[in-house]
């Protein structure tokens, strides 16, 4: 292995061979407003030109989608009954406005929402009131460099539109339970969500991404566009816990105006192949983005976190902090990027990724990147990867803990450290108990393995 060429970040693999996911241009919905048809066509042409991203594409260097070609996916047609049900693995939040989606289509929406808050199906809105969507849909996210995001634009069918009017503060969190289901055969789906917070609005959006029991392979390729007007504040807390046959790709693009705050937290514990890509643009001074998260992976799991924060104007701040625990056969990827544009003076951007490798065959790939064009900035990044600290382990064992318990405690503490950056409350508690459950499951597996 002396050949260690770095791969090409810009050159996309131009495949003439169509992947099974790519639709025939004629198949695109015909009776739609012109702007929407244009959006779909543009998306399709990007996807057709670039194809399914390969590891030769820098942004997908460590996440290989080649396996998708072997699965005979069919496009989800929305035929599944609502009864596909709420996944048992979703977060249990008693005090929340819950919205359930099956394969990206809302099937249950809360009956009472405070004044100034609207939660509707995207498909419904496109049919009844397209003008309300037009200024936002496909306008916030620039997907010209994102083949999978572009494919979503071409194929999106439904999703949720959340609007919170200026000055309105939501009392309880909105809880989006997205269930993927494929009882008969492998399905792919392309949910599209839109979140608009008016000036000074305040909301907490929780997402649970889970799979219905007994599902065949699913591929969810979601795009979420978020706009935060001046002084708006959104807490976006995500629990990614789909089943072992789920491929879950998510691209979130958030645009922040002056003084807006975006606090995201992602906890990934499930799925076969998960990619959470967040792109945040700080467009107004005083805007602040916090992208925190944790992941725990076991055999056969691959989780990719790709973050890009773009400091486009002066006086903006951002913080990326991710911690991951990877067990036997798991593979973790963290790609973070901070861009500071010319003249975006006094930007403050931090980035930190820490990974704990629990076993011989665990793999972690990290690429924390800084791209800076202004001089009066404070930017730093850090990354560590390695095994458990033997001193800490010794300390606990010296105090009478069995080795397995001591290890479990340290793993928990490692993840809790970042989970605790979620504001105190039921969501944080639910996250902490999910980590505990994951840890217990890991334990159980170890026990079985040694028996």
């Amino acid at each position: 292995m002396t050949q260690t060429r770095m791969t090409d970040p810009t050159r996309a693999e131009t495949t003439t061979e169509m992947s099974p996911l790519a639709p025939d241009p004629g198949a695109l919905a015909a009776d739609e407003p012109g702007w929407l048809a244009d959006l779909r066509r543009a998306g399709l042409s990007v996807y057709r030109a670039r194809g399914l991203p390969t590891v030769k594409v820098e942004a997908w260097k460590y996440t290989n989608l080649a396996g998708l070609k072997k699965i005979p996916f069919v496009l989800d047609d929305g035929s599944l009954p609502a009864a596909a049900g709420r996944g048992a693995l979703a977060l249990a939040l008693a005090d929340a406005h819950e919205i359930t989606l099956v394969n990206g289509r809302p099937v249950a929406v809360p009956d009472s929402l405070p004044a100034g808050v609207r939660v509707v199906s995207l498909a419904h809105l496109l049919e009844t009131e397209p003008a309300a969507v037009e200024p936002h849909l496909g306008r916030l996210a620039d997907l010209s460099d994102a083949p999978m995001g572009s494919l979503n634009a071409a194929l999106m069918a439904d999703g949720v539109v959340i609007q919170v009017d200026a000055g309105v503060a939501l009392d309880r969190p909105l809880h989006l339970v997205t269930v993927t289901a494929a009882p008969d055969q492998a399905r792919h789906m392309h949910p599209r969500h839109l979140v608009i917070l008016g000036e000074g609005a305040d909301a907490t959006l929780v997402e649970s991404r889970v799979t219905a029991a007994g599902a065949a392979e699913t591929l969810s390729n979601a795009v979420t566009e978020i706009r935060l007007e001046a002084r708006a504040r959104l807490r976006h807390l995500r629990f990614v816990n789909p089943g072992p046959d789920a491929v879950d790709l998510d691209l979130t693009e958030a645009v922040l105006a002056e003084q807006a705050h975006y606090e995201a937290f992602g906890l990934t514990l499930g799925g076969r192949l998960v990619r959470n890509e967040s792109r945040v643009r700080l467009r107004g001074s005083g805007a602040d983005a916090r992208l925190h998260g944790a992941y725990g992976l076991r055999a056969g799991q691959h989780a990719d976190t790709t973050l890009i924060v773009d400091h486009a104007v002066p006086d903006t701040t951002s913080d990326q902090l991710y911690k991951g625990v990877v067990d036997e056969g798991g593979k973790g990827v963290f790609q973070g990027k901070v861009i500071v544009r010319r003249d975006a003076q006094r930007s403050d951007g931090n980035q930190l990724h820490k990974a704990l490798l629990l076993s011989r065959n665990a793999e972690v790939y990290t690429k924390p990147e800084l791209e800076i064009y202004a001089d009066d900035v404070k930017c730093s990044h850090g990354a560590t990867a390695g095994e458990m600290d033997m001193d800490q382990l010794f300390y606990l064992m010296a105090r009478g803990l069995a080795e397995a318990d001591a290890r479990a405690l340290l793993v928990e503490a490692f993840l809790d450290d970042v989970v605790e950056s979620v504001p105190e409350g039921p969501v944080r508690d639910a996250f902490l108990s999910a980590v505990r459950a994951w840890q217990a499951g890991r334990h159980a597996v170890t026990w079985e393995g040694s028996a």
Partner: protein
Amino acid sequence: MAATQDTIDRIAEVSGAYKYGFVTEIESEKAPKGLNEDIIRFISAKKAEPEWLLDWRLKAYRFWLTMSEPDWAKVGYPPIDYQDAYYYAAPKSKDDAPKSLDEVDPELLRTYEKLGIPLREQEMLAGVAVDAVFDSVSVATTYKKKLEEMGVIFCSISEAVRRYPDLIQKYLGSIVPYSDNFFATLNSAVFTDGSFVYVPKGLRCPMELSTYFRINERDTGQFERTLIIADAGSYVSYLEGCTAPQRDENQLHAAVVELVALDDAEIKYSTVQNWYPGDAEGKGGIYNFVTKRGACRGRNSKISWTQVETGSAVTWKYPSCVLQGDNSVGEFYSVAITNNAQQADTGTKMIHIGKNTRSRIISKGISAGRADQTYRGLVRMMPKAEGARNYTQCDSLLIGDRCGAHTVPYIESRNPTAQVEHEATTSRISDDQLFYCLQRGIPEEDAVALIVNGFCKEVLQTLPMEFAVEAQKLVGISLEGSVG
């Protein structure tokens, strides 16, 4: 990329027989412009190379034809026409060179003066045709003799091909294979000269080997190839380049450097690169696209790269260490300064294969004017790299608000017992530090040089003594005009 009829005709003309016919001595100064198999045969014949080497060159060339120029680096330059260049030129006739320092660009002389370079050396660097044997050459001759007595081989690579074919055949291309990357492959096809060093078993080379000592073979051209072999238990320190700006007419430099350290051996490779960076507007200047790689083959071996990069219009360079032997150590210390319109995409790769391998990366990037600089580094922990350690620190300093500083680290961990740590910061010269210096009567430019030297201290300290002193001065000079 077929040869043009013109080229074919001209080759036929000079060689007497088209194809395979380059055995006779020819008077021509240069091979015709362009690149094709005949040119490669021509170069090989000129150097009276053995058959296997010609085959190797041709293999590289054929592979090169299938490759495309890399575009992933964060640098931009107009496309290079590889057919519009001479790939072989005999050592320059002294007639074209300036006759005395009076004919040399006064700007260049001013820099020499600031660096405190002796007059003789100034003449040498500026390419003045001096027929008389000057001091450094005689010094060089003495040194060479002494080295030979101790069994150290230090010569040009063409000479080594003739005199030590076994060593060359064994090691050439064993670290950077002919198919490695676009520029290294091009180099493999057309390299004209470079240095060869072999340090025998158990010997600690008593002096720093420097290209200074190979002065009579200075015209090594744009496709340099260096191969250094440190046999078991030996030590060698090699200095490449010099602090003074060199007169150089070649636009594209695609060099390859290969290092091999066997059991318990250590190689310290220091570079000060100060080629012409182009004018303030970014016109002209050297493209420095270099592949440098060292293999720590043996147990407990060590390779240390130190580089001070202040020159060239575009730099594309990643000195790397492949840590194969157990307990081997790789180090990379770098200071890169870009000013005006310079662009540099530089860094390192540390590939940990053996057990308990350790690597350390200290990179300091300073960007001023409208320059763009990227640190790009890879740390890879292979599954068998038990107990391996890496520490990386890369700091960037921006001077002015029109420049860019980027950091692109790649960290790949595939062994839980391997520890990787990466830290990076980006900042500018603090107003407080500057104010403190100004208040004490230090002029602004000197103050900046002082602060930047402090920033780079960790790296400059690893340079051999005299080099370090010169490099410090160079840091100040490179940043001239970037403040105020």
